[in-house]
């Protein structure tokens, strides 16, 4: 019984390490896309302010840029999901 419990204990520890890794990994993966999305949206807003007549086109392109940038953060999130049991 003790042996089994010991084995589960190492299993639980592995779980804990995995959880730490997953959390850190997701946090790190979110930094870059966070900055990137900020840049994309900021530039989109300034160009909309400069040329309000082309706001529709800029908004569409902005969402595309956000989608591509966000994909990186989402890959980090997927790793998080894969590591968490």
């Amino acid at each position: 019984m003790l042996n089994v419990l010991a084995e589960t204990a190492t299993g639980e520890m592995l779980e804990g390490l995995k959880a730490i890794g997953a959390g850190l990994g997701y946090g790190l993966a979110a930094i870059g896309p966070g900055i990137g999305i900020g840049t994309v949206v900021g530039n989109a807003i300034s160009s909309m302010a400069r040329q309000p007549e082309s706001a529709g086109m800029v908004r569409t392109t902005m969402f595309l840029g956000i989608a591509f940038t966000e994909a990186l953060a989402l890959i980090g999130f997927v790793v998080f999901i894969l590591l968490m049991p």
Partner: protein
Amino acid sequence: MSKRWNRLLVASLVSTISIAAFAGPAGASGESIGACVAERFEEALEHHGHSDHMTSEDIRHVAHDETVQDELEGCLEAPSPILPELNEIIWGGAAFLILFVIMVKKGFPAVKGAMDARAEKIRADLDAAEQAKTDAQAVQSDYEAQLADAKTESARIIEEARVTADQLRTDLSTQAEGSIAEMREKAAADVEAQKAQAIADLRAEVSGIALGAAERVVQSSLDADAQARLIDAYIDEVTGSND
């Protein structure tokens, strides 16, 4: 009113059904890892038939069994949520395809057709309105041209009338001046004539009076004083009356 009640009834029915169908415990494996391990291990012990008299040796023996260990590890490895379930793929794909067929065959053309028809109708209406506007503008410019014509015409007429009036006025004034001068001359001639007449008349009168006075002087030539007095009196009388 009854329609609204019907809707309310349907809505509450649908929500009740949906809650009954959807709510409830989420996963089929609603237990923690530890509980799973304990349960599987109990099962393994039962299977090995050691449930009545367990020694630690037996337990260790069971725990080191390959199949039991695999089963216990299964507790740690729940299926990853990123892997799609086959039944959900089948249902989801079928649902999308059915919806796609419905939309392509019926829903989309109906809505889009109605929208296009309406857009076409609005465009036609706008074109008609535009046409009417151009027509009205043509008529208006026509009227404006006519009005401008009329205005220049009237200005011309007024100008003409003014010129005529000026002409008339100068004519009349010269004519009037001429007649005034003529009348003045005539009046002056009349005055002269009457003056000469009056002087002639006066002279005849005075000579008549002088003759009368001479007569009286002759009639009463008594004394010189009386004569002189009479003449003076007479002259006074004459000047007094003739003044």
